[in-house]
């Protein structure tokens, strides 16, 4: 899979009610890579995720996934190759955690069929992986923010797609769960899957992402290898905050922010 094109965006523009939100975005993303999508609040990260998932159509420009126009694909076909964990969900009814995660198998279960043994196995594995198996029978409306977030990630994992889009999924999580999820995603990438994650935490991006795309004011500010793009200059430029790059003994790089 490595080296093959995942998404290609040609000069994509998008606006909400004629207020421009993303302008002139041209990108090409490879398969088998972990991409971080960075940028301040309102820079267009969620909108770009919506465009990459096909939820929104660009005003102008083209988006292709594996060489095919995203909007020429049927929703049901797309669901077998691409999944999204959005930032927000509606929880109006008391589905339990198990039922909710099982919904991720929907694209693979034909109408009039019941989930197979394999479907149940995948759900159980996914619950265990995200450390929510003890919540299986709990109503999703009685979970904490971090727990619901993990349920929705589990739902996306059982969908078993090659392309995974995550919109700020670690924002509600405790640091141990956030790291666990990023490690899980990294392991999936190592197996050939492609992950694009909108992130706030620059150190998380430095630790896990192969490449990062930085958005600022609806434009692509920078795109490249994580360790090359994320530095004190970028932080000062985008967030107007002073910081220092620290090289740790194992060769990894971290950012330390100055709070004064």
């Amino acid at each position, binding site marked *: 899979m490595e080296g093959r094109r995942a998404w290609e965006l040609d000069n994509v523009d998008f606006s909400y009610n004629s207020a421009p939100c993303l302008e002139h975005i041209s990108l090409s993303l490879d398969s088998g890579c972990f991409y971080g999508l960075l940028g301040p609040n309102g820079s267009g990260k969620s909108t770009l995720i919506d465009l990459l998932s096909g939820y929104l159509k660009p005003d102008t420009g083209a988006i292709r996934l594996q060489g095919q126009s995203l909007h020429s694909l049927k929703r049901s076909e797309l669901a*077998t190759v691409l999944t999204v964990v959005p930032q927000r969900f509606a929880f109006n009814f008391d589905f339990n955690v198990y039922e909710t995660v099982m*919904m991720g198998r929907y694209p693979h279960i034909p*109408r009039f069929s019941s989930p197979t043994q394999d479907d149940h196995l995948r759900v159980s594995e996914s619950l265990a992986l995200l450390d929510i198996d003890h919540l299986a029978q709990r109503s999703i409306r009685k979970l904490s923010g971090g727990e619901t977030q993990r349920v929705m990630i589990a739902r996306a994992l059982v969908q078993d797609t090659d392309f995974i889009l995550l919109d700020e999924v670690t924002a509600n999580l405790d640091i141990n769960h956030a790291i666990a999820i990023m490690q899980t995603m990294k392991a999936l990438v190592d197996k050939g899957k492609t992950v694009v994650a909108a992130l706030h935490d620059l150190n998380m991006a430095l630790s896990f992402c192969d490449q990062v795309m930085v958005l600022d004011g609806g434009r692509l500010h920078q795109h490249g290898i994580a360790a090359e793009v994320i530095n004190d200059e970028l932080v000062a430029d985008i967030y107007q905050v002073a910081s220092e790059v620290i090289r740790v003994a194992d060769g990894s790089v971290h950012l330390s922010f100055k709070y004064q």
Partner: protein
Amino acid sequence: MNQSLDKNNSSRSSHIGSDGPGILWLFILIGVLGAAMIFSAGLGYIEISPKEIVQIIAAQLGRHLPDSIDASYPFVIMEVRLPRIFTAVLVGGGLAVAGCIFQSLLQNPLADPYTLGISSGAAFGASIAILLLIVGITLPAPLVIPSFAFAGALLTLLAVFSLAAPSTRLSSNSLILSGIIVSAILSAGISLIKFLADEQVNAIIFWLMGSFIGKDWSDVLLLAVLVMPSTVILMLFAREMDIMTFGDRTSESLGIDTGRVRRFVLIIASLSTSGCVAVSGIIGFVGLIVPHFVRMILGPSNRLLIPCSFLCGCLLLLGADTVTRVMLPTEIPIGVLTALIGGPLFCYIFRKTQLQRWR
């Protein structure tokens, strides 16, 4: 209360698809409904035993009618009571199923079949028909009022959908708002018609209150044709509706074309509702309360919720209609009775959900 809710959650089937206990519920409900219908048919000014009722029905199917049965009984059962009972049952079931659908698809547990203004549309149509009859314009069709009501409901649906259309996914908020606006305009229209009807306004008021009095087999046929197929079609969309309660992004990432499914399913549910309103007038609260109670017991999965709500809706309106027909000294309009019972119940549920939210 918390504990009892948790118990409900764990006792209900944990896996989508393994609905063993749910199927049992279905059979129990079907049995209870059958028995209740026969029991209700025996009640009234002339009391007829369940055994005699079964014999009368068997006689319709070609069996010999025992001589011990009074000659007037078959008429009472077949032409008076059973059409009314079937009407009540089908309207109850139809409204309850439509309620489930509206609540799931509008992602709003407090929606009901009338949220999109179908009842106001039907009432407006019926009021026009009644006004025309009052001023002496006789229309050729035999079912003038139901036809007008049905047309009114469909036109309202069309208006609400086109008003909400600019939001390509037909978002629930824009649909609910459009429903409210169109309803408000139609309510003013109904008031105007009532004013024009002057002293004969009673006919309109009685229609609006809902009733099963004088229903015959043609009403039952109209309902059966609309309610039964739509219930079956809606059951086919149970999985999609479950997923769609989680919001459009989640549903679309699972491959559901939310705009198309929402439009199609709402139209089917609305057709069924329109039929119910056209035949029996406006009967409130069934579509709101029944799905709520069934959800509390069986959980929110539409696969079971839809058929069980159907059967519970049947039972509820059959019960209410039997009470008003048999037990009360004068017949209270069924819409008034369901609102009087349903209203306080609704207050109770509303209060309970509010408390849960703040806990």
